């Protein structure tokens, strides 16, 4: 049986613009992923707790408030502390290109800016999961 790709879609931080997160979550479902949607206002600790319990392959965080330089590194660090480096941390939102570069050096995957087709994110996650098969 095919291993389903499980993705946690989270709105981290306080900003409430969940249009993108919800559209992405629905697109992921339509792409055949199992999507765990956390809802709004999640702290990095909550995101990581959910990701661990749900044993996801990917964490996708949506952030439009400018807190990305705090939240993404925090999520990556907490996942590392839990021994869960095998999980891809990606996401999207209003994130300047320079910050994307910085975050990528800190272990964050590709980040998607406004207007990115959701198909790109789907493709990216599929490829990433194919290239990083889970050890059992």
């Amino acid at each position, binding site marked *: 049986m095919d291993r389903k790709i499980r993705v946690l879609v989270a709105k981290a931080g306080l900003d409430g613009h969940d249009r993108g997160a919800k559209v992405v979550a629905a697109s992921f479902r*339509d792409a055949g992923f199992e999507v*765990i949607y956390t809802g709004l206002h999640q702290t990095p600790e909550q995101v990581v707790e*959910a990701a661990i319990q749900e044993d996801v392959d990917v964490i996708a965080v949506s952030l439009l408030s400018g807190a990305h330089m705090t939240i993404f590194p925090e999520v990556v660090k907490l996942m590392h502390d839990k021994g869960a480096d095998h999980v891809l941390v990606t996401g999207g939102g209003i994130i300047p290109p320079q910050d994307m570069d910085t975050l990528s050096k800190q272990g964050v995957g590709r980040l998607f800016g406004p207007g990115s087709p959701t198909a790109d994110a789907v493709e990216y996650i599929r490829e990433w999961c194919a290239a990083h098969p889970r050890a059992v």
Partner: protein
Amino acid sequence: MARAISLVENETPEARFVLERAYPCTGQGIRIGITGPPGAGKSTLVARLARRYRDQGEQVAIVAVDPTSPFSGGALLGDRVRMVELAGDPGLFIRSMASRGSLGGLAVTTSEVCDLLEAAGFTRLLVETVGVGQSELEVAEAADSVVVVLVPESGDGVQAMKAGLMEIGDVFVLNKADRDGAERAAQEVSAVLALKKPAPGAWRPPVVLTAANQGKGVDDLVEQIARHLAHLNEQGLLRERRRRRLRARVIDLVRARAVGRLIERVPEARWNEILGSLEARRRTPHQAAALLWEEAWPEDASHPAAQGKGRAT
């Protein structure tokens, strides 16, 4: 733990090994099934129940099952959102599951996941499913106590009855009781239940009014579930129920295995032949099934499945 659940969900070969280790450690936890129509407020209610059981010192695990999209095979699992208040508690574990199209049936997978959770020390297992469709009902039935959640809008008890919900509930909840029509709906449910005319001394499912979003009526629900469990214990029915459940589980596994084996063995060319004969109306589907069965087990030419009566439960 979380990884082990994935193994079971994905039906990997390693899963059996993990389950073999877990099974001897099960039997101590209480499994509570919570089901009802979409939008009845099940997740909120489950969150409230979980909180209460935590306050009683129980280790609580929640398994929330949502349907897999038949079109994409994907699923959107949003139950955690209603459980945010439970975050950050190490004595509490939440897992979302998609119903998928698993080989042994959803009920088997869910029971196995519960085994793992029990073996890991969780004492209260809350299994939440949407109460539509046979497999979801089976999941709920695989519990020690089944809570059916309805709302005033889910209308005349007739709808619920049609969906088979009225048959399986041990405790009924009318959630969103702060809305108009809740009392009347509760009376209707009671009336429908009364039609079943339970034998003297048998369990009569109570109807509890709750407003889960405000936490109202949850204590009452906890009490009614406890009453039901006590009743089962006193009458020796819990053991009976669990034996029935185990039997159904083994039968599901046997069926899955047998059918899986049989289908695997039929080469593509043979399929084409058989399908051709069906198209030409030279054979009936029943005859085709009997033929395949005989070819697999020649010694057993008169097995019930050969007559197409495979379902054993």
